[in-house]
């Protein structure tokens, strides 16, 4: 089992911890040596706290979490914390923006905010790093990535796994000035729960990667496109500042022009 080693604040060093049922990797770019080991350690502790607090509030795997209490009927949504109600409102906003392809409601009606919370936590963890004076880093939480700045000698480059063999890369993209976040959703991976719009229909896409200015948008839209298929892909690509790569069940790829441009040479 990989565990978080003591913070050796050398550039390029990977920091890894478990949270929210997955594993988070954080790595820094070139300027970290100037920031100082103390600041790095403080910033990393804040990052971990963001994920820990999000997990304790929103996890449906923790019986005592606030969201689990709502699912159990022992807490009314209207009596929930302001943080949870704001998160739910955000989720409803995304549901409306995606014509229901993204939804915070499970098939059984239970409110499940997991499709939003991870992206939200990554974004806030990133704010903690920025507040700590760190300008070049990436956070990868379970395959969803947020970057800032650049790697020591070049822009950050993100590999996209091959949905048919997750030990292989299918492509790699270079982070641009506008697009710092990449999220990938799949309909094949164990543990994925994406509700397609017609209840029993299989998802049209095996895997969808979305490149966006922020990780919440990337994560939500990747999920929505897996659920909503090409209609949702077209809607997202034509109305938002995002780029996408989709792989269907026949192995056929579709890319937006900007995603093609971002492919590593």
């Amino acid at each position, binding site marked *: *089992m*990989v565990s978080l*080693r003591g913070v050796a604040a050398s550039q*390029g*060093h*990977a920091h*890894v911890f478990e949270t929210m*049922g*997955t*594993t988070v*990797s954080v*790595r820094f770019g070139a300027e970290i040596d100037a920031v100082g080991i103390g600041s790095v350690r403080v910033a990393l502790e804040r990052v971990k706290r963001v994920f820990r607090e999000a997990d304790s509030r929103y996890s449906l795997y923790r019986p005592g979490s606030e969201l689990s209490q709502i699912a159990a009927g022992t807490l009314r949504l209207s009596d929930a914390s302001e943080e949870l109600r704001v998160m739910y409102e955000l989720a409803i906003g995304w549901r409306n923006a995606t014509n229901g392809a993204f939804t915070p409601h499970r098939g059984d009606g239970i409110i499940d905010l997991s499709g939003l919370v*991870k992206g939200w936590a990554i974004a806030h963890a990133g704010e903690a790093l920025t507040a700590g004076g760190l300008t070049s880093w*990436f956070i*990868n939480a*379970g*395959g*969803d990535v947020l970057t800032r700045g650049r*790697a020591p000698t070049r822009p*950050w*480059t*993100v*590999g*996209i*796994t091959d949905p048919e063999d*997750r*030990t292989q*890369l*299918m*492509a*790699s*993209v*270079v982070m641009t000035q506008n697009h710092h976040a*990449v999220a*990938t*959703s*799949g309909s094949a*991976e*164990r*543990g*994925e729960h994406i509700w397609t719009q017609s209840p029993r229909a299989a998802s049209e896409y095996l*895997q969808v990667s979305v490149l966006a200015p922020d990780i919440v948008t990337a994560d939500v839209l990747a999920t929505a496109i897996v659920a909503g298929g*090409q*209609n949702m*892909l*077209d809607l997202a*690509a*034509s*109305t938002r500042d995002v780029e996408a790569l989709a792989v269907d069940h026949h192995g*056929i*790829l*579709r*890319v*937006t*022009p900007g*995603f*093609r441009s971002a*492919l*590593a*040479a």
Partner: protein
Amino acid sequence: MRARSAIIASLASGAILLIGWQAGNQPTTLTGAVAPSTAPPATAPDGTGPAPSATPSSAPAPSAPVTPAAPSGVAAGTFTGSQIQTPYGTVQVKAEIAGGRITDVIALQMTDQGSTSMEIDQQAVPMLRSEVLSSQSAHVDMVSGATYTTEGYLTSLQAALDAAHFTR
């Protein structure tokens, strides 16, 4: 969405047409691109798509036939299609053909280029897997994939990258 797909195909995205060619869909794609159709959407029979030969008498003839399987002698040169009215504006396509193969497709005219046309330009088009694969050899810093569990992480490419950076 059938109609919309046909329109996208006829909007002369070079990528769509050329990839269609490579995928062996070329006759269909060509017909969609430069067929001398001026029919408004309402007259298109549902589900069947426009018939290439059913040109209304009032329709302007294309300035040149574009037939990939044409007899020898017409299999090279530049061919300009007629102006096609679509819900997204007027579209005219020029195709360059050499040796019986399309070498380039250019949109000559996209009037009424409002937001909808711009949206179409932004939409996802098919891409050859080999074309994407050529980008995978680059050095990567991190890996994006469908969400892995903590156990899944251990066998993930991200874990391999992290492990490499533990020891640096």
